[in-house]
């Protein structure tokens, strides 16, 4: 059975105009975040949602996590409907969101993890051991007792990953997880994710970084403006160069491998 299944999912965000809108310039209207999108993810698979900003990647992850509900279509997680069985879905899913500061600033990293672990119903007897494990996995042992209000962006991001891991979810949702991480931490992070995959965890990664997507994913879903443009299995015979050309031609994005500085020219 598929761990995650999207069937003809549509999600539209409606922007109602403000009162006295003539005083300002607030945009009104609808934004189609996802338009009749269908896909599935299997146990132990790394499925990458790849696309530029505003393509619907984060919306898809939020729909799986039950933060959002679909307007039409259905989202099933481990066989549970996100609309009707949200509680069962949440027990299966861990999410590391791009929002950096989604922690309690006057609690330490360890205290924050303990708090979220309690809400995620991690047994009290097991809690300290699991927290130590995820602190070690994310390289936060030395900062474990520092108040998170003193954390840097990268440390916040590592703590977000630790929080998602502490419940040992069957499905792990990662939204731009390495955006603020240094190279060594990123490499360690992906090694850790590979270990989880070997333990049959399903990973859904939302990113706009093509190089990262092809190096860690098993399958790519290419999204743009809420549409699922294409689906590619990595290592299915298509060369990396063909995939790269396909992605950048389809989305019209700039190739990150080609340095933006080269395009801008020398500035000094």
């Amino acid at each position, binding site marked *: 059975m598929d761990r995650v299944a999207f069937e003809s999912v549509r999600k539209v965000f409606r922007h109602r105009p403000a009162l006295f809108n003539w005083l300002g310039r607030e945009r009104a209207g609808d934004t189609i975040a996802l338009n009749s999108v269908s896909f599935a993810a299997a146990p132990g698979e790394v499925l990458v949602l790849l696309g530029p900003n505003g393509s619907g990647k984060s919306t898809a992850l939020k729909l799986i996590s039950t933060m959002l509900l679909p307007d039409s279509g259905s989202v099933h997680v481990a066989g549970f409907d996100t609309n009707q069985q949200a509680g069962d879905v*949440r027990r299966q899913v861990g999410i590391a969101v791009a*929002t950096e500061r989604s922690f309690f600033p006057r609690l330490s990293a360890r205290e924050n993890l303990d708090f979220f672990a309690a809400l995620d119903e991690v047994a009290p007897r097991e809690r300290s051991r699991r927290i130590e494990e995820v602190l070690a996995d994310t390289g936060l042992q030395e900062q474990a007792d520092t108040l998170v209000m003193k954390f840097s962006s990268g440390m916040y991001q590592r703590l977000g990953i630790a929080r998602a891991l502490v419940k040992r979810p069957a499905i792990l949702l990662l939204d731009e997880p390495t955006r603020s991480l240094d190279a060594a931490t990123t490499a360690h992070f992906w090694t850790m994710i590979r270990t989880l995959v070997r333990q049959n965890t399903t990973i859904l990664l939302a990113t706009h970084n093509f190089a990262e997507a092809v190096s860690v994913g098993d399958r790519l879903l290419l999204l743009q403006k809420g549409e699922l443009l294409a689906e590619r299995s990595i290592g299915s015979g298509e060369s990396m160069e063909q995939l790269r050309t396909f992605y950048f031609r389809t989305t019209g994005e700039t190739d990150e491998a080609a340095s933006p500085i080269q395009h801008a020219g020398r500035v000094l």
Partner: protein
Amino acid sequence: MISSLDKLRAILRRDLLTAIRHRTGFVLTFASLLTQLAAFYFLSHSIGPIYRPGGMDYFPFLLVGTGLYIFFVMSTQAFLNTVQQAQQTGTMEVLMTTSTAPAELVILSSISAFAGNLVNLVVYLAAGVAIFRASVHANVLACLAVLILSLAIALALGITAATLQIAFQKGGAMVWLMSSGLWLLSGAMFPVQSLPRPLELLARLIPVNYAVQGMRMALLQGQSISAIAPILGTLLAFGLLLLPLSLWGLSFSLKRARQNGTLSFY
């Protein structure tokens, strides 16, 4: 049940640690309570001993009325602050993806916010007795009964404020309505019988009014549970009506926010 108690422990610990690490805020809260108490003490002294509403000395009358007024308003405000901060920092969305049902989470968080302010209320009343010599003849059981039922009503008011915040980003309106309306209609400063008839009738629809009356009778006059049974019954009826209603409203507004993607709007 064990899981809910464990979650409540985690939430209480979070709120306590946050409160004591806001060192200045923690000290200022108690300083502010004592300042207000002093102001009411000198107000009652200025008015003099002739004014005895309901046959009680005015300062103890004010002590109970204002103590409960502060409890209801401040605890609703504190709970609303928790919700607003969670929206502003993005914690709200993450909290809603944990294994804890959103309604359970909000109820447990509100219990924590109200428990903190219950401590403030007890400190306020104790300071009134110890420092300002308010004379009390407490019936402890009756006091506890009023407190427990008041807490249920306070929870319902707090959850309603959270619902307004999540649905319309306007939870502050509830606090404004409470803080201004309750001064006039709760009987905190003077008996509601002094109000014009239409306002007195309106005051009878406000549960805080019964909490204030019941606590005065139990704490200042030492009346027993059976003596204040009609008031306890009214408080219970309000609790049984308002708590499920507020929970239904919360559940509806959460579902609507998940549908519209406005969970973290503030």
